[in-house]
């Protein structure tokens, strides 16, 4: 059983990302969307948490990253997907947990 988690809140504004990370098991994927994409950039405390969560895969929705002007600050090891890639991730996992 592998879950796809989606997070749409900034990690600096809400504890949604932390809650998700605490409940995500190894083998699951966390997809960062909307304001959640701010977690995917470098140079802050959240980037360290992602780096240390080695059993979890991280992905970010490219269109949301581009909208915010942050493509150039993407951290290593985070896969960029488009809307089709989002759908593919959904099909590859057993269920989706949309953290709101």
């Amino acid at each position, binding site marked *: 059983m592998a879950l796809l988690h989606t997070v749409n809140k900034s990690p600096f504004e809400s504890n949604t990302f932390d809650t998700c990370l605490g409940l995500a098991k190894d083998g699951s994927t966390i997809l960062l969307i909307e304001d959640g994409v701010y977690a995917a950039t470098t140079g802050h405390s959240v980037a360290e948490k992602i780096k240390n969560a080695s059993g979890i895969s991280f992905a970010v929705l490219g269109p949301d990253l581009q909208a915010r*002007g942050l493509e150039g600050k993407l951290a290593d090891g985070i896969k960029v997907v488009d809307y089709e890639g989002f759908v593919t991730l959904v099909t590859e996992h057993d269920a989706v947990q949309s953290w709101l």
Partner: protein
Amino acid sequence: MSVKKFMYVNRKAPYGTIYALESLEVVLIGAAFDQDVSLAFIGDGVYQLTKGQNTEAIGQKNFSPTYSALGDYDVNKIYVEKESLEERGLTLDDLQHLVWEDEDDDWAEKDSIRLVSRAELADVLDEQDIILSF
């Protein structure tokens, strides 16, 4: 009518919610009333000013170019909190270069963004007559 000091405090990232766009609209409307206007960008609000925003793929209006027009409306005191940038791994280089032309100085082009510490910003807020929060 006496001139009052207006401060617009921006604390939300753009696009995920409507606050950033609404604030900008209110600032532009307010600019018509010849008041002493300042803007502050705190917390996730600093993300409003990042350069290179491209919203084509999310189907929303990219309102970031509008910030560069603020100087033409005599809105040229844009305070960005240093700690907020640092906490997010950003520097001034990641933000748009916003300028205004000083008519009292032969239209010299000057920077609108003032990078201030949290303590300095507290003092700026303390001087205001009216504070609007977004």
